[in-house]
């Protein structure tokens, strides 16, 4: 509930700084839902990486780029009516799909006895079954870092 309300506030605030603050509230409550879903490691990652890292980056850029003009003019683009109609269709479709799937029970896998903690299980899966994706993700992060630095540089000699 908090997540939904604050997410609505993110996209309706006129001032981008307020949007960032409300996005932090959204991310924190989503992190709480992770905890509810027994994903303790992802909860920690959410707090540290998202709220601590990405949001500070966002706030920094918002402060850097802050325009007083943007606060005065309308925050929505001209196509908002068409966009809202399209999204309404999307929402109805999603809700209908979930509603129809409610009665249907997927084959339940035999529950594994959790002898180890969540972090331990996750690390085991990451470094045994998902070795190649981890390497690809690290390469992706490297490329993203180099790309961000190059694009933010003033002039490439």
């Amino acid at each position, binding site marked *: 509930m908090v997540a939904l309300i604050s997410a609505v506030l993110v996209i309706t605030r006129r001032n981008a700084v307020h949007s*960032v603050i409300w*996005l932090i509230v959204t991310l924190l409550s989503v992190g709480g839902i992770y905890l509810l879903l*027994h*994903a303790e490691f992802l909860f920690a990652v959410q707090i540290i990486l998202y709220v601590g890292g990405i949001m500070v980056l966002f706030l920094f850029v918002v402060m850097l780029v802050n325009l007083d003009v943007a606060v005065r003019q*309308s*925050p929505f*683009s001209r196509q908002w009516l068409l966009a809202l109609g399209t999204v309404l269709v999307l929402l109805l479709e999603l809700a209908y799909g979930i509603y129809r799937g409610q009665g249907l029970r997927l084959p339940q896998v035999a529950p594994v006895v959790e002898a180890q903690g969540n972090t331990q299980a996750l690390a085991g899966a990451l470094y045994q079954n998902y070795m190649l994706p981890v390497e690809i993700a690290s390469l992706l992060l490297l490329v993203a870092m180099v*790309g961000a630095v*190059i694009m933010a540089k003033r002039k490439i000699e």
Partner: protein
Amino acid sequence: MNPIPTEWYLFLGGGLFTIGVIGVLTRRNVLVILMSIEIILNAVNINLLAFAKYFQSVDGQVFALFVITDAAAEAAVGLGLIIALFRNKETVNADEIDLLKW
């Protein structure tokens, strides 16, 4: 064992996803559009974790971790783009960036 049924998480994820799409489609500020993309990625993560719990499997959590990694990379590159854009065009409005249009 599971007091909250999986469908509720799916409805929450769908709602968050829809809000994010509304933000992407209707806002003018590129920064807010990037934030809406973060909301969309979080909605996807909620769905992944709900099903990971439903199937008692850790694979969905691994996938969610990769989604978070990609979100970090995307935020870094996107913000770099915005800084470069602001330096050249002095604007962060999506509908004033029309270099490809004539």
